């Protein structure tokens, strides 16, 4: 007698082998493999039970599916149950033995024992796929009239599953299902209601006819579970039947007012809100008031869930009854600082929707406090989201909510100071937006920004932040330059801007800086111009020198924009300094009397001539097209495409690039080509840079990897040889060889023709040659009528893809890349 492990032993053993599970499991599985094949059903069932347990650990037991079916067919209920459980847990929709189960389930469903039927139904509810559903729905339908309500109830529910898998069954099943609504047993009715509710969610219109019966149940039932399902059902139906709303309002109102079960209350309110019952009818406002009152009660409860649901529902109500919701702003603000992150997210969501002029300050204040005070890393995402939402709320509908722009600007700057959030880009945009569009803000902005650039948090590079805080300086510095006229102390700003710390700044900031400097400088000049004397002159020339030095430093930055601007500033200020330090005594005297022309006129005109104003969104549309301009006329007249060119793939390639296939664009390409052509034919063919079909010169440019081989076949790979080769290549550059390069003929095998011999040029027509795709040479444009050559062309093209230059003559191909000019070995490779 074999001692078999029971399920309990297995579980105990597994728990003991905590670190060593894999080997234990493997041995258990192999034991089970033997046991399932035993003739005794008990042993088999026990093995299957063990496998079911192991399946929870992720072991695949699909190999045992046939045995599972065997156990399922056992007459003993406890064993049958084990089999069914194993089947439920392990069978997938593609398990092949599922078909065998069909008859089994059918037989079990027809059994006299209700437990057996129940087991079968349960199994079916999990295993149902299309074929099973199709085969078994009739039997399930019959069970709907079974004498035991326990079975009837289950049959109804499994019918739902079947109809999902096999929708055609629904037509036959539905009438019977509907009749079950009048069943004497309440649980059966409940089941029927659930099923119809679920079906109605998918296709509400077809179930509208059940509404009267459902309504009757709604008003007469006191079973909360069923009521919830009924209310849910009506929620799906109301969009399709507006009259329902009127009818539903009284019972729902009553339920809301009297119900003690919170889940029922929530379901009612949810239906009222989502079912569109808050608008469009006479009692809507009353209903809304009622809902809001009850929801307020949710917030007084200590249960977090209720607060969460309250916030969700308020958001929905806010779409139609905003004022009611706004009254409870204080509740939402409290939720914004709740320790529970999901609550905060919901509150933020809600508050962003209902924000208005009065509440924005308090909301932003709460959020900012949180951001500044609490730099908790675990809620980093919330910080990012709340920062972004601050920006969004404040800029919503063109700053409709803002009355105090100065406050807003300071909020943005504060936001920029907050660590660990990445909102610089948006802030930049917002600041610029504000300053440009709100003229009255400019003086305040100028003053604020002149303080900001001296702050260490912005100017000293932060190494740990997501983006360096300095990015906001782009907007700040630009505004300083643009609105320099409002600066209280221009020189301080200039001083701040030319600090050495900016040498290592991001180039975007540097480039803005460089343009801002002259503007601020000019502003300083303007301040001093009225009382011009030598002292002022000295001051200005000193600062000019500083600026010039700064610009010089920045000229070495590896960024094209910064380099360009730095160079321009440098040269302008050099000019200025030249003017300030004239060699001539007369000029010096003049300088003391009045400021130099360059400073008074040129520079201001260059930098501060016209103010930059905001452009309206639709301004472009208002620009009139000038007389005589027709935007729809072709720029170039149509050209004729020569036939032979049309055949080449090249045009398909070109028009594919274009994205169009019509002839007009092609002709456009052609005309482009023609003009290029004409320029090319006039081109100096002898120029080293002309890579025409002049293959010899092209060949000279190829430098191969293989070591050079001299005529003796000994590979020479020393530097001298390389150098000499390089020099020949170089000389190849300086005077391109128009004729073929001489190669020792005696090394050629029979039939092989080298690509750079004369023979090729004359015997093989153009298309077989290895040429650039577009040929510019007139003489080579011969019509290609030979079919075989077309094939060779495609072959050429294909081999071209591999990167080798291949030429065809007859059947042999020669790899060009392996060849050298004079001393190369000729190989023939395929």
């Amino acid at each position, binding site marked *: 007698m074999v001692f078999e492990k029971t*399920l*309990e032993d297995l*579980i105990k053993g597994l*728990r003991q082998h905590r670190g060593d599970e894999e080997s234990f499991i493997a041995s258990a599985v192999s034991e089970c493999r033997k046991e399932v094949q035993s003739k005794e059903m*008990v042993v088999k069932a026990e093995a299957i*039970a063990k496998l*079911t*347990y192991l399946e*929870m650990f*992720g072991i*695949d037991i699909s190999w045992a599916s046939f045995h599972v079916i065997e156990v399922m067919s056992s007459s*003993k*209920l*406890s*064993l049958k*149950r*084990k089999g069914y*459980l194993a089947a439920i*847990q392990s069978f*997938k*929709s593609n398990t092949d033995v599922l078909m065998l189960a069909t008859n089994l389930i059918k037989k079990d469903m027809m059994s006299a024992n209700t*437990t057996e039927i129940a087991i079968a*139904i*349960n199994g079916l*509810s*999990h295993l149902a*796929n299309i074929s099973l559903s199709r085969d078994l729905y009739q039997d399930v339908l019959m069970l709907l009239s079974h004498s035991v309500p326990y079975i009837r*109830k*289950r049959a109804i*529910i*499994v019918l*739902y*599953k079947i109809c999902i898998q096999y929708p055609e069954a629904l037509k036959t099943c539905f009438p019977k299902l509907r009749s079950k609504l009048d069943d004497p047993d309440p*649980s059966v009715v*409940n*089941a029927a209601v*659930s*099923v119809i509710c*679920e079906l109605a*969610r998918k296709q509400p219109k077809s179930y509208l006819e059940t509404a009267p019966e459902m309504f009757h149940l709604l008003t007469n039932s006191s079973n909360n*579970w069923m009521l*919830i*399902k009924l209310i*849910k059902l009506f929620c799906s139906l109301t969009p399709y039947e507006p009259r329902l709303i009127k009818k539903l309002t009284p019972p729902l109102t009553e339920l809301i007012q009297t119900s003690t079960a*919170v*889940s029922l209350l*929530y*379901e009612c309110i*949810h239906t009222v809100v989502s079912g569109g019952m808050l608008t469009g009818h006479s009692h809507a406002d009353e209903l809304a008031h009622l809902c809001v009152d009850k929801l307020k009660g949710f917030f007084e409860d200590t249960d*977090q*869930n209720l*607060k*969460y*649901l309250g916030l969700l529902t308020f958001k929905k109500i806010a779409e139609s009854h905003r004022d009611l919701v706004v009254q409870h702003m204080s509740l939402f603000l409290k939720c914004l600082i709740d*320790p*529970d*992150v*999901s*609550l905060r997210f919901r509150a933020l969501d809600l508050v962003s929707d209902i924000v208005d002029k009065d509440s924005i300050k308090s909301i932003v204040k709460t959020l900012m406090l949180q951001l500044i005070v609490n730099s908790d890393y675990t809620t980093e995402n919330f910080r990012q989201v709340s920062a972004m939402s601050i920006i969004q709320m404040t800029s919503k509908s063109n700053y409709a909510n803002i009355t105090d722009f100065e406050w807003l600007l300071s909020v943005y700057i504060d936001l920029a100071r907050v660590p660990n959030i990445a909102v610089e880009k948006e802030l930049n945009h917002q600041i610029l937006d504000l300053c440009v569009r709100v003229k009255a803000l400019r003086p305040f902005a100028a003053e604020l920004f002149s303080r900001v650039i001296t702050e260490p948090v912005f100017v000293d590079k932060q190494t740990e932040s997501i983006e360096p805080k300095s990015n906001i300086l782009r907007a700040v510095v630009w505004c300083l330059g643009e609105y320099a006229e409002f600066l209280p102390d221009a020189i301080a700003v200039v001083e701040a801007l030319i600090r050495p710390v900016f040498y290592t700044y991001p180039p975007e900031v540097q480039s803005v800086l460089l343009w801002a400097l002259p503007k601020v400088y000019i502003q300083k000049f303007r301040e001093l111009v009225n009382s011009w004397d030598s002292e002022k002159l000295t001051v200005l020339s000193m600062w000019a020198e500083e600026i010039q030095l700064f610009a010089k430093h920045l000229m070495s930055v590896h960024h094209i924009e910064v380099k360009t601007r730095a160079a321009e500033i440098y040269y302008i200020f050099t000019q200025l300094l030249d003017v300030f330090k004239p060699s001539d005594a007369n000029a010096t005297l003049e300088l003391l009397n009045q400021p130099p022309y360059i400073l008074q006129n040129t520079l201001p005109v260059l930098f501060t001539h016209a103010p930059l104003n905001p452009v309206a969104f639709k301004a472009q549309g208002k620009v009139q097209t000038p007389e005589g301009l027709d935007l729809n006329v072709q720029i170039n007249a149509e050209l004729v495409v020569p036939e032979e060119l049309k055949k080449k793939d090249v045009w398909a390639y070109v028009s594919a690039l274009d994205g169009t296939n019509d002839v007009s664009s092609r002709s456009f390409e052609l005309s482009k080509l023609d003009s290029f052509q004409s320029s090319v034919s006039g081109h100096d063919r002898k120029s080293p840079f002309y890579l025409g079909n002049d293959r010899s010169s092209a060949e000279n440019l190829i430098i191969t990897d293989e070591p050079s081989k001299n005529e003796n076949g000994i590979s020479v790979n020393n530097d001298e040889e390389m150098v000499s080769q390089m020099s020949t290549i170089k000389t190849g550059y300086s005077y391109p060889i128009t004729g073929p390069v001489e190669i020792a003929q005696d090394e050629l095998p029979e039939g092989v023709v080298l690509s750079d011999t004369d023979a090729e040029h004359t015997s093989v027509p153009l298309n077989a040659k290895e040429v650039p795709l577009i040929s510019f040479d007139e003489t080579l444009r011969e019509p290609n009528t030979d079919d075989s050559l077309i094939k060779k062309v495609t072959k050429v093209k294909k081999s071209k893809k591999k990167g080798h230059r291949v030429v065809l003559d007859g059947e042999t191909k020669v790899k060009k890349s392996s060849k050298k000019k004079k001393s190369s070995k000729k190989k023939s490779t395929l």
Partner: protein
Amino acid sequence: MAINFLLLISRQGKVRLAKWFHALSAKERVKIVRDVASIVLVRKPKMCNFFEYKAGKIVYRRYASLYFVCGIDSTDNELITLEVIHRFVECLDRYFGNVCELDLIFNFEKAYYVLEEILLAGQCHETSKLAVQNLMLGGDAEAEIETQQHEVL
């Protein structure tokens, strides 16, 4: 309301019970278990019992060392799902008598049978604890009889 799946996860992330009411591939199941477990196990006790996951919602509650996790659709009522979970736990408690995690480990089959009495195809169809208890005891009695018959043989 339709429950899509029900999981019982221990504090170490081990799955003690898994009931899937929809056909999902093994990969998807594993992924869902992993994702959900990672979110649920880090949540603090004061936080609310639901969160959004993919297209639906997850409702969970912690009982001693086990997390009972349910996945529902986004239109379903979370509070009622919590009730269902609680009803399930109460039935288990009644059947096993002060149920603990070990009971569920060693008698996982019985736990599945209790679940089957309450939920079918994701629908809660039996809310009476008494009825469930009677059904389970009836099933146990039949199993006893059968074992005795087998031993006699």
